[in-house]
Structures are given as structure tokens and as C-alpha cells.
């Protein structure tokens, strides 16, 4: 549950303005990077649905890739198709690629059937496909990660984390849901439990042990309002051990959010004291 105090801060926002802003920034970024459009992996979940709708508003050249596997619920695929319909995608701008065969080749090569390892292989196979399609079309890979997942580290490094931009990366999951409703995404997509679907029956809230309204409240109160754990526990009516668990997830996943560490030798080392903007040349 989200306390009223947090709800006011996170959800009483102008979603028209946010949409306009995100669409404009995507448009600008595509243009400035010299690309002709964008590609997004569409899973049928809320994040990729919202990202797909925003991308289709930003450019005529939007491409959608559906990459189901044996662990993808049939319902998700149906939801992905309903989003294709919502954005008026035609056969020219989407493809469906089942990744089971590629995944099993990787798994065999590695010699494992560990669900976590195989799950991450799936995420990285999808990344490779997205980049290959992107390069073929001279498009950008548009990531679908939201702020909650990014902060928790609830993503695969160089898998769904391997993207060019993260348009909804500064919106918590609950904000993305609200934005989804605002954008006309069907309620059943907005309301279903989020899942990476890397193995059967996996749900984000099941794995983390809290619902996203509570997770987002903790993340917001801890890292934006910088309150202490006890106060957060009172405001969210959540056990302090759960709050500590969330904070630990954020801290231990910091390496996923930063570029790889470079061991300094020179007088000017990349990222440390060699800091240039992306828009350089």
C-alpha cells in the first residue's frame, strides 16, 4: 500500500505534461544521435507497453520486437499484440522471434540448466536481437526499465539493462502504471503483477516480497526525502527488516547502474577525471 503522503508526491502529477516531455526528449535524442527511429522489445508488460506507446508518438519509425520463450505466459503475448494494435503497428514494423532455440544453444554451450543463468541468457539474447535489428534499420534501442527496477537492480546487466536510452527510467513502477492508464493501455495490462517471465511463475513482487506501492514508497522516502529507516517503517506501516532488504538491494546493485570500473594508472582516467558529455562531437 502507498501512504497518502507518498501518493500525493508521486501520483498527483500532470501526466499530459510528462507524456509531452518524454515524447519530445525521445524525438530529440533520436535526431541528435543521427538515428532514423527506435526499436523496443515488447513483452506485453506495463513498462514495455508504455514505452512502445511513447515511442510511437515520438517517431513514425518505431519497430517492435516480440521475443517470447517457453516461460512467456500466453496472456503476455496476447497483451503485446493488443499494444501493437493500439499503436497501429503493421507487419512492416514488428517481428516475432521465439528465442527458445537460441537460448538452449547457449545453455548447452555453458552446460547449465540453472534457471537464473538461463533466465539471464534469455534477457541477453533479447538484447542481441534488439541491437541487430536496430543496426539493420539505423534505429536506437529504447529501454523499458523503470526507476523502481533500476534502483533495485531488478534487471539483467547487459540484458534488459543493455539499451541506448531509458525514457521511463525516472518514473517509479506505480507512476508508470498511472501513466499507462493515462495513455489508454488496457487495464488488464496495467493491473497484472509485473514479471520478467524469465522462468515460469516468476513475479517481481513474489521475488522481492513486497508490493510495488510499498517498494516505491520506501525507495522514494529513503532516497528522495532521505528519511531514516524507522520513520519510513512508521509511514509505510512496513516491518523494518523489509525496508532494510530494499535498501540492501539498491546498494548491492550499484555496479549495475555504473559503467565498469577502470583501474587508474594515468593522470587522466576515463570517467574519473575525464568527464565529457555524450553530445561531444
Amino acid at each position, binding site marked *: 500500500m502507498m501512504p497518502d503522503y507518498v501518493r500525493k508526491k508521486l501520483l498527483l*502529477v500532470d501526466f499530459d505534461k*510528462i507524456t*509531452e516531455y518524454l515524447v519530445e*526528449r525521445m524525438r530529440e*535524442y533520436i535526431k541528435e544521435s543521427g538515428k532514423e527511429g527506435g526499436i523496443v522489445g515488447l513483452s506485453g508488460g506495463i513498462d514495455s507497453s508504455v514505452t512502445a506507446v511513447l515511442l510511437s508518438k515520438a517517431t513514425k519509425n518505431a519497430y517492435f520486437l516480440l521475443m517470447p520463450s517457453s516461460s512467456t505466459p500466453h496472456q503476455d503475448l496476447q497483451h503485446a499484440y493488443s499494444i501493437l494494435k493500439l499503436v497501429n503497428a503493421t507487419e512492416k514494423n514488428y517481428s516475432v522471434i521465439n528465442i527458445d532455440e537460441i537460448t538452449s544453444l547457449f545453455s548447452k554451450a555453458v552446460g547449465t540448466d540453472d534457471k537464473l543463468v538461463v533466465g539471464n541468457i534469455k534477457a541477453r539474447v533479447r538484447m542481441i536481437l534488439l541491437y541487430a535489428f536496430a543496426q539493420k534499420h539505423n534505429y536506437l534501442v529504447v529501454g523499458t526499465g523503470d526507476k523502481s527496477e533500476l534502483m533495485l537492480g531488478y534487471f539483467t546487466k547487459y540484458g534488459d539493462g543493455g539499451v541506448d536510452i531509458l525514457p521511463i527510467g525516472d518514473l517509479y513502477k506505480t507512476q508508470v502504471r498511472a501513466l499507462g492508464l493515462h495513455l489508454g493501455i488496457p487495464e488488464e495490462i496495467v493491473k497484472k503483477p509485473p514479471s520478467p517471465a524469465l522462468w515460469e511463475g516468476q513475479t517481481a513482487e513474489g521475488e522481492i516480497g513486497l508490493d510495488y506501492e510499498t517498494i516505491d514508497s520506501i525507495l522514494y522516502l529513503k532516497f528522495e526525502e532521505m528519511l531514516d529507516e524507522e520513520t519510513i517503517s512508521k509511514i509505510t506501516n512496513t516491518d523494518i527488516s523489509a525496508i532494510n532488504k530494499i535498501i540492501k538491494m539498491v546498494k548491492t546493485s550499484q555496479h549495475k547502474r555504473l559503467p565498469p570500473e577502470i583501474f587508474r594508472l594515468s593522470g587522466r582516467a576515463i570517467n574519473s577525471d575525464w568527464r*565529457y558529455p555524450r*553530445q*561531444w562531437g
Partner: protein
Amino acid sequence: MGLRVELAQIRPKLGDVTHNFQKHIEIIKTSSADCVVFPELSLTGYVLRDLVFEVYKESEKAVNKLSEHSKCVIAGLVKEVRPGILRNSAAVIIEGKIDYIYKFYLPTYGLFEERRYFQPGDPRTDLRIYEYKGYKFGVTICEDAWHYEPIEALALMGADVIMIPAASPMRRLSSTIAIREQWEALLKAHSIINGVWSVFVNTVGSQEEEFFWGGSMVVSPLGEIISTAKLFEEDRIITEINLNEVRKNRFFSSFRDHLQGFHEVLHKL
């Protein structure tokens, strides 16, 4: 006849001085205003990071070239004030003559990191009053308007108009644009307290993660927002300002009283 001021709310290309210079020239050449005011670091862009070391010379040269075309122009650049010392600066060009003002308060918190690159101006030597067509004005850059002293000092030194080139990024999502409301409040307060026109010219568009919201505006000495530029996109607006509004404020306010004792106390803090 009032002074016609153009608020040139441009979207500079980060680090591309040639591109930005062309944009300046185009606006200056087509402007019917007496004075054209560009945003903070308008010739270089704001989120430069280590690019400052690569663009400062070019931005200084661009200012020299601008001076060939100008009546009254205020443009943002990075100036090397002595070898190896850079300042976040605004060139004030009047009839071909160039002078520079420097930012005093360098934001280095949150997303800002100006102290990493720039030296602050020194109020004892760097507060300047200019005059154009009978109008006395001062120039102060962005963060300096988030403090009392720079504008207070300029007003007490004789300025009736304060030009404020800025690069204000959007942050803190809410139902309104909080940062815009804060700027409105600040500008109104400066104008009302000092009996001055406040001319705020913001950058617009994205630079790296940040997005500059535009919304440049002119606030009268009575604290009224007289004109506003568009949000989120480039815009040019001309506003005519006059000294009567300054009189309307100062005849009926206590601006004339400057109790130096307060500053003596502040000096000792």
C-alpha cells in the same frame, strides 16, 4: 520611448560554438529590439563538463565577432581571466564595445558542478552598471538571482533594469513546474524590493540528462509578469520597458532607505 529588449530563448547545441554563434548572429541581425539578451553560456551550452577546456577560446573569439554586429547584446561564454582560470561569464556588448561580468555564486550541489570548473567573480571588483539609451542596467547570472546581494547591490549602485541570463533545468516532478513558480517568486521579490525590471532569459531544450524549461519572462518593478516566452521550445519575445514603472514603485516604497548597518552586521558574520 521605452527600451525594447529581446529575450532570445535559444536552444544551444552543447559544445558547438560555431553553430551557436550562427544562431546569435541570425537573431541579432533580424531583431528590431534595442537590446538582445541570450541565456547563460549561450555560446557554449551549459552541461559542458570537461568540454569547458575545449570551448572557452572559441567562445571568446565568438564574442569578438559578435561585437561587429551589435547594438546592445548580452551573450554567455566561458572566459579565461588569467591563464588556467575560467569563469562563467556574460559578455555585455554595447555599440561594439565589450565588457564582461562574472557569475558570483557557482552552484555545486545536486546536478550542478560549477566549482569544479569555474572561479567565482569578486563582488568588490566585478559589479558593473551599464547604460544604453538612457537606461541603466546590471547583469547577473542565474544562481546569483537566488541570493539577495547581487541584485540588491546592482540596484543600489544605480541599475533600473536587471538582466538575468540563466540555464535553469527542470526538476522535482509535480502537478506544476515547481522551478518555474520559484523563479516567478524570486523575480517578483527582486523587482518589488529594488524597484527594478527583471529580465530573465532561460535556455531551452535538452542537454545530457537535463532539460531546460525556457519560460523566459519580464517582471515589472511592481512585480507583475509583463511577458512570458514559451515553455519547452525556442522563442523570441520583445518587451518594451520604461522608467515610469520604476518611479511608480520607488515613489511609494522604501527602496530609498538603505540602512548600511545591516550590511555591517552581515559583513561580520
